[in-house]
């Protein structure tokens, strides 16, 4: 019998396989960022969030809002695995007339909000979390932000309001892969130190290794980190994680592997899965 963490570890590799499969099929996608945030999504959907296809219409469900909409392949692969829709639907990703577009859309079962423009998810999450407080509901709101989107000023407007309204039912996660489309995040526009900034804004902050499933589980279990404060998880991640030639390589921000590259990635992930079974 596998432990929970073993199940999660297998899923992370399988999700990576599927992300690549559907990106190659679509000939488009945000490969590096999907691979950097997939472990976070794995833990959220398979451990943390109280939401499923059966409860998605319930006003009491936990919400997940993906602010960094461009890494939609990670979200779609996880939602398919959760049973929101058949995985084979993803064969139409980005194809003519498909509603599986290159960003989250509510036309896809399981998606809470249409995102893609950056700096929107945190405000949407604040509004959703505020409604829970007003109605004395117990649901929580998790939102995933990219580190590249943080210079959008709307994030900081939202960060102020989350603390002002003591939204301890809100948890933001930053996928801190330290890269964005045109370079290293600290070169493009430095946002460090994020912990001090958010603490100064009134948030309670934790750092985690964004690929350590056990750490992610335990960290999300502790939300809210402090009663009366919104929680921030700074997840230190590697863009392209799990495919060695993609890791920390800028060109894989939205690079699509050719056949040979894809075969190499498939082989590497197959070995990773075998190593887990051993």
């Amino acid at each position: 019998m596998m432990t929970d963490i073993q199940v999660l570890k297998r899923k992370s590799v399988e999700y990576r396989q599927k992300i690549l499969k559907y990106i190659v099929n679509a000939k488009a996608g945000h490969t590096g960022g999907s691979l950097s945030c997939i472990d976070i999504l794995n833990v959220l959907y398979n451990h943390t969030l109280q939401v499923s296809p059966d409860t998605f219409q319930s006003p009491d469900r936990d919400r997940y809002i993906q602010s960094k909409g461009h890494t939609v392949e990670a979200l779609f692969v996880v939602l398919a695995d959760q049973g929101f829709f058949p995985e084979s639907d993803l064969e139409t990703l980005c194809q003519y007339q498909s509603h599986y577009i290159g960003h989250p859309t509510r036309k896809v079962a399981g998606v809470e909000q249409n995102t893609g423009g950056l700096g929107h998810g945190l405000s949407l999450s604040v509004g959703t979390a505020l409604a829970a407080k007003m109605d004395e509901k117990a649901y929580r709101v998790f939102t995933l932000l990219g580190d590249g989107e943080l210079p959008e000023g709307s994030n900081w407007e939202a960060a102020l309001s989350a603390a002002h309204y003591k939204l301890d039912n809100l948890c933001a996660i930053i996928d801190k892969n330290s890269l964005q489309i045109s370079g290293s995040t600290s070169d493009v526009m430095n946002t460090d130190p994020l912990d001090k900034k958010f603490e100064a804004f009134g948030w309670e902050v934790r750092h985690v290794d964004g690929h350590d499933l056990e750490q992610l589980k335990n960290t999300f279990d502790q939300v809210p980190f402090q009663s009366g404060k919104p929680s921030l998880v700074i997840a230190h991640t590697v863009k392209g994680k799990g495919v060695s030639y993609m890791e920390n390589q800028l060109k894989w921000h939205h690079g699509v592997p050719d056949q040979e590259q894809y075969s190499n990635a498939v082989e590497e992930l197959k070995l990773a899965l075998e190593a887990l079974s051993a």
Partner: protein
Amino acid sequence: MLETISVLTETKANLDVFSETLQQLAATDKDIVVVTSDSRGSGKLVPFGLKFPQQIVEVGIAEQNLVGVAAGLASTGKKVFAVSPACFLTARALEQIKNDVAYSDNPVNLIGISAGVSYGALGSTHHSLHDFAVLRAIHNLIVVAPADNYETEEAIRQAALLEQPVYLRFGKKPMPLLESSTPFEFGKGRIIREGKDLAIIATGETVYPALQAAEKLEREHQLKVTVVSMHTIKPLDTSLLNEIAGSGMPIITVEEHSVNGGLGEACASFLLQNQKQVPFKIMGIPDEYTVTGSQAEIFSHYGLTDRGISEATLSLLNL
């Protein structure tokens, strides 16, 4: 046909009616939520805040967050009114309106207060002469400028129930009550006055000067003029337009908005593409930053008055 002045009494500002109507709605519905960006005072929402402190959310001067938070609230079933000066709401938060409200289909009621040139001499930073144009191009958004207290109250009540995003804009000047047998309904123009010689299609706070112009034209030139309050800019009441143009009447449109992209161009586009070619003129604010003055002075400067509109009419009719 109405032969005498249809205006009965000078009444309240549409803004006051908005505030009172919201209080009435909130008294029986705890899901009514107002979101403000330090706009509680200018939105006449102080009494609302005192009566319903659990139903008002302040976000500070942060319009992007105002609209994003409103969208999040609306996604849970709250009946949300996001209130901010029209100039900031529709320019600074335009992407939030497009993505978080319209595209995500979160039925927020966006309330643009002190719209058009209501802020007068505070100048162009505070004017919203672009809002119809930008919002008309966004799918899944009803765009409305009520003319009088009745239209405002109805618009607020109907918007609260509607599961579709709505943008409502109005000013802060007391507006006379207009008489019409047409009840208020989104997307349906109200005929305020009927005539056969010309139609003035106006919206928001220009409907009243349009009506005054019609009465002046009858008095001084024996012209019988139709006046329509086209409160809904989108979706446009094309069947009414069809009917008016079908009779061959020349049409003048009047709006407190740039002549580019607003009511006038919406009407022109429909008419031209439906082979309804009648003498036609668009009145509004020309493509410039406005002259300094009060709302009344700005209206007067650009001819959005009984005199200006009747002169434009005579010129269109070659009289």
